[in-house]
Structure formats: C-alpha cells, structure tokens
C-alpha cells in the first residue's frame, strides 16, 4: 500500500514538474517586497505588478514581508522554492545589511532578473529645525558634533546616505532607528528627529511647508525640483541613489529566468508604469540580466568599502 502511494506521489510529482516546465507560469506569481506597503519599494512595485502581469500572462501578487531591516523578507525569498513563482525585490540594502552583519542573506543567494528603477536620495530636514539650507546644517553640525539626530533604518540605504555625507563633510550625526519611510516621516514631521533620507515623493509635503529639502544627491539638479541644490554644488562629493530590481531564488531554471527577463523588459516600457514612476520621483532604469548581474557585483564591492570606511564592516 505504502509503495503504491509513494509511486503515485512520485508520478504525480514528475507529471506536475514537467507540466510546469512546459508552460511557466501556470499559476499566480508572488513578488516579495521586504518592507511594509506604502513604502517606496512598494509604491514602485505596485504599478509594476500589473505591467509585468500583462506580459507574463499570470496574476502577479505583491506580498509585503516586512521586518528586521528588510531581512525577514529576504530570508523568506531565499528559502522559497526556485520555481519562478516567488520573486524578490531588493535594493542596495541587500549588500549593506550583509556586510554590517545584520543579515546572512546576500545578493548572490539570488538570480538577477532585471533592474527597473532608480530613485535619487534627498537630504530632508524637519520643519522645526532652524537651518535654511545645507550650508547652515553643516555649520551647525560642526558646532555640535553627534547631536543632530537622523532617523534611519540602520545598516540600510537611509543610514549609508547620511553616513557618506558625514564622511565627506567631516561631521558627525546621531542615528535613531526608524524602520521604513512612514515612521521616519512621522518622526520628522513632529520634529522628533532632525534629518532623514527621503526622495522626491515627499515633494507635496515640502510645498506645504511640512518638510525641508536641503540637498539632492544627483549629478545635476533635478528637473522636478530645480530649486534644490545638489550636494556636489555644496562641495560635498556624494551622489547616491537607490536602485530596485527583480530577483529569483538561486537555482531557478534558465528558461524561467529568460521568460521573466523578457516580460520585465516589455513591462518597463509601458507608459502607465513610466507615468507612475514620474510620480514616485523615480527614473525608469532598465538593466537586463547580464548588466544587472555586473552592476550588482560592482555595487557589492562599493558597499563593502563604505561599510569598512564607516567602521561597520563585520565580514
């Protein structure tokens, strides 16, 4: 009896395996966003999901698995079966959390599929702070080192970006753990922290006088916000953006990756997606599998160096 069941199970398994190889995808695809919905990554991938869905021919479901600086979702994605039905959305945090010892998961636990978007960072201050521009901030920071508070997800991009400014300008901040953009905004609107890393999505609040953009970390001034100076203009050589892409667990079949890559390439071209990204203060930046893999390698090295420079390197 037991033998029959095992055989039947084996046959059924084989049958399902071959059926799946023949026509990926034949059921909904889950995309793990390792942060809460309403955050930047979520806001970028919510409009991307229907675009991808159009070209993949299957429902694409966003699953927000937040917690522990985004490493909970990364772990879950890493442990998911490599069948192309569970995908994962990283940004630079995957490198920084690995090198600072927060997470055990690293970028090489996944197969890159494509990069889709790039968001420049903006140094943002609470309306309750006295500074009118970044120059005043830096002067103030020099006067009282280690007293200006920065809300950040520790060891992630919102921590590394201000840390690079610290280094370039020779100042010292005090970091307070606020994971995710929503709690960070909460704290900065109420004046409970002085500074934070944000992006052009917060433009509405700046126009309403609830926030102050001090400087943007792009090469040239951004057309959406031409009054905001770049850090480079201010003599602080920091260019920083957050780049998001799509990955699959290591071991995902090549055919599945190719299918995802081609769907992704078409999805980023959809005008609806481009329009949504414009609202997000984000540029559509497509890199294919190969280019994305090379970019990841290079970024990984950079993050290792930054962690080392900041004295946070644990590996």
């Amino acid at each position, binding site marked *: 009896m037991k033998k029959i069941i095992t055989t039947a199970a084996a046959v059924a398994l084989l049958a399902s395996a071959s059926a799946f190889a023949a026509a990926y995808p034949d059921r909904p695809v889950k995309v793990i966003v390792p942060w809460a919905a309403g955050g930047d990554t979520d806001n970028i991938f919510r409009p991307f999901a229907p675009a991808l869905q159009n070209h993949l021919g299957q429902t694409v479901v966003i699953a927000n698995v937040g917690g522990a600086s985004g490493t909970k979702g990364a772990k879950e994605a890493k442990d998911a079966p490599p069948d192309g039905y569970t995908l994962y959305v990283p940004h630079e945090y995957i490198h920084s959390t690995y090198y600072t010892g927060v997470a055990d998961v690293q970028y090489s636990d996944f197969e890159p599929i494509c990069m889709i978007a790039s968001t420049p960072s903006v140094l943002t201050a609470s309306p309750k702070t006295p500074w009118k521009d970044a120059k005043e901030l830096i002067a103030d920071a020099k006067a009282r080192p280690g007293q200006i508070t920065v809300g950040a997800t520790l060891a992630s991009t919102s921590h590394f970006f201000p840390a690079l400014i610290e280094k370039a300008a020779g100042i010292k901040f005090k970091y*307070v*753990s606020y994971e995710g953009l929503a709690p960070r905004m909460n704290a900065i609107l109420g004046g409970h922290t002085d500074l934070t890393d944000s992006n052009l999505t917060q433009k509405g609040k700046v126009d309403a006088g609830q926030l102050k953009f001090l400087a943007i970390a792009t090469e040239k001034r951004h057309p959406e916000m031409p009054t905001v100076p770049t850090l480079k203009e201010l003599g602080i050589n920091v260019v920083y953006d957050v780049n998001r892409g799509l990955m699959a667990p290591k071991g995902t079949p090549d055919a599945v990756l190719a299918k995802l890559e081609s769907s992704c390439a078409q999805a980023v071209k959809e005008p609806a997606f481009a329009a949504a990204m414009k609202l997000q203060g984000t540029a559509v930046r497509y890199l294919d599998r190969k280019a994305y893999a090379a970019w990841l390698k290079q970024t990984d090295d950079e993050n290792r160096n930054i962690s080392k420079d900041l004295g946070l390197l644990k590996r």
Partner: protein
Amino acid sequence: MYELLLSGIANILQVQYLLPLLLGTFIGVIGGALPGVTIAMTVIVVLPFTFGLDPLQGLAAMTGVYVGGSAGGLITACLLGIPGTPSAIATTFDGFPMARKGEPGRAMWLGIWSSFFGGMLGGVFLIAATGPLAAIALEFGPWEFFALFVFALSMVAGLTGSSITKGLLSGALGLVVTIMGNDPVMGAPRLSLGIGFLEGGINFLPVLIGVFAFAQIMSDIEKMGPARPGQAAGPVPTLTVSHLKVIGEIIARPFLLLWTSFIGVLIGVLPAIGGSAASMLAYDQAKKFSRQPERFGTGAPEGIIASESSNNANVGGSLVTIMAFGIPGDIVTAVMLGAMTIHGIQSGPLFISQQPKLAYGIFAAYIVAHFLMVVIIALSARYMLRLTTVPKSVLIPIVLVLCVVGAYALNNTMANVYVLLVFGIIGYALVKFGFPLAPLILGVILGDQIEINLIRSIMTDSDPWLFLTRPISGGLIALSVASVIFALWQHRRYRKRSPQSDDDHADF
C-alpha cells in the same frame, strides 16, 4: 472634510465595496444573534476572506461585521432572553420582560433604533475626533508613544478579571511573546529557541486567533454532553410595530440617548474594555438617573435604549483609537489592525492624511453599515431565530477550519498554523488558570512598539529621566501607576464584599 466624507460615501456605495459591506453586516448580525458566537469570533472567521480583497473592501466587510454584530445581539436578547453577544447582556434585562409582556416588536425595534442612533452619534464623534486626535498623536515622540502603550497595557491589565496580579502577568506574558525573534534594530537573533521560523518573530494574528478562538470554543465544548439535543426555538412571535412611535419614544429622551452614547464612545476610546462593559455601565447610569428606577428590569424602554445605544456608540469610539493612535480598542479592532498590516497599511497619526480614501472609506462604511443593519434585521429577524438552533457540533468544526485557513493564509506557511495551535493550548490553559486574555493579546500587539519606542528614546537622548520629565509622557506614566493603584483599591473593596471570586469564563 465633509466633501471627503461625501466622496467616501459615494465610493462605498459602489457595488465592489457595497457588496462586502453588506455581506459583512449580514454575517455580523448573524454572528451577533447566535448565542455563544461573539463579534470577535465572527470577525476572526471573516478575516481570511479579506486577504484576497483590496484593503477597503476588507475593512468595509469588517466594519460591517462590527456594526452588525453590535446590533445583532439584541435579537436573541429581546426575543429569547439569551444575549447573542456579551455586549447585549444589559439588553436582556428589560428587552426580554417587555417581549414577554406581549410587545416583542416594540422591544426589538427599540433596540434596533437605539443602536442606530447610538451608532450615528458615535459616528459623529468618530469623524470629528479622529483628525484632531491624530494631529495630537503627531506631536508624540518616542517617549510619549512608549508611555501611551504602557498606559494602555496597564489599564487593561488592571481592569479585567478578578486578580490584578494575574492581569498584569497576563499582559507581561504577551510582551514575552514579542521578545522572541530577531531584535528590532539590528536584527540580532534572540530567544528563538533554535526554531527556524521563530527568528522572524511571532505574528500577532495567529496568536490572537489561537488564544481567543480556542479558549472560547473549548469552554463551549466543556459544557457539551455526549448527547444533548439542540434547544428548540418557540414559535416566532409577531414583530410588527409602528416605527414612528418607537423612534418617537427614543427621541423623547434626548438626554438619555446622548449620555449613554457618550459612555459608549468613552469606553470605546479606552483600550480593551469593550462593548459589554459599555452597555452595563450605560444601563447602570440610566437606572441611576431615572425617576422610577424600580421599573428597570420589568421592561423599561430606557433600559433597552441605554444598553443598545451605548454598545453601538462604543464601536465608533474603538475605531477612533485605532485610526489615530494605532491602538486596538478590542479584539475586533485588533483583527482590523492585523488586516491593515497584511495590506501593509500603517495605522497611526499619519493614517488619515496619507490614506484619506481609506480613512474616509471606513467612516463611510461605518455610517452606511448602520442603514444596512436596520434593513437586514427588518427583513430577516424571524429567520435569524431559526439559525440559533444550529447545533454547536456543526458550528465548531467550521469555525476551526476558518481559523486554520486564516492563520495559514497570512503568508502561506504552516508555521503560523503551528503558532495558532500552540497558542490555542496556551490560551485555554490560561483561562483554566483564571487569567484574563485581553491583557495578553494587547501585550502581544503592543510589545514590539513598546520596545522600539524605548530604544528610539534612548537613541535620541540617553537621559532616562525624559520619560518622566516630558509632560505628556510623564502624565501618561503617572496615569499608568494610578490605574494599577486604582485597580488594587477596587479589588480590595470587591474582595471585602464577596470573599469568593473564582470565575472561569473567557473574557474579552
């Protein structure tokens, strides 16, 4: 604001939202009417259905359950003398005598229209107060949030159950659940006992479902005999009544209606005291203010009005705290909070300004649900009574299956189902040992927030005295201490009066 509200109502009246709201209200009325099935249980059963819906659809359905359930309890309370939910206990005092005197229609409709008016008054408060309270909450720094959450927990631990030590211990055990898993700042593995899935921490929804649903179900099973026939419902009496006259009876007592609704709202705003306390307190107040208190208990309309207006107004109050501060007032709002987290929506000070469509959608759903509730009860009250004869042996397996599905569907892993079972056993054991469950659940929900705000405070400024010297934070901590002292004093007085104080019922 009113434009937003009107557009919210227009939005909710679309079929895609109206349908879940209608279904939710309907299921709420049924769940409310079924003795032994509480509103909390109903909303737990509805929860997994909302995972696949868009956030407003899911929250509309839950709001419907909440409103419908708070009213549904009065059907069985008035007509059978059995409260359908704990919050309808006070309704039986006068509703059932009035029904037996030959006025079942008047009793029931007094209850329904009181629920309606009480709920609407609660709604006025909800819509008017959420915004300003959220603005106050925005001024709260980590110290204030820490103090606020500690206050919420201390109040619940002090005010529920017969033993203050057990109440506090129950709340502290809830906090223990949240310290397991990676630490919230740097993700260092902590107390995961070598169990892989504990590393990510324990999700509060399976804990809540397990602790609450299992304790309730097992307490029911204890009372089941090997063979006990389901109770037979008597013939359904005629329920026709002049609605104008009934409404007139309520409107003629504006002070009573306003005061008892106010009590309902107030109890709703305070965390985890719940609808049953609101209706009992309101009933007591109505009796105290009455010129003929001796009429209470014999079918006085004031008794029904007080109980039912307050328990629906209570719903409005609970929704305020969850929307402005992110603190659930009871199990139902705790489940709603869970549903929001699943959809990744942050409740709290910025909720109303960042998600105005959703916030006003909930307001609108709350208002519309009251109209739906009246229509649903008018059409189906007689059939509801038949439903009360569905045997427990059928109901219990179905509820358990939905609990399992709910836990599984959280993120499609069996891990949460195991958590459900483990906490089901723990919850039942706690009830058997006389621990109140409400503090435990609130502890599990607030634990993470208490910790992270404590850490944020210290990271912002290393001076620990700030918790006491910042006015709001210091005030809230003083209130926490006061609430524990008050509970001790009250408990002592209570014990002097009645030396025996053993009660075993699951209470939330």
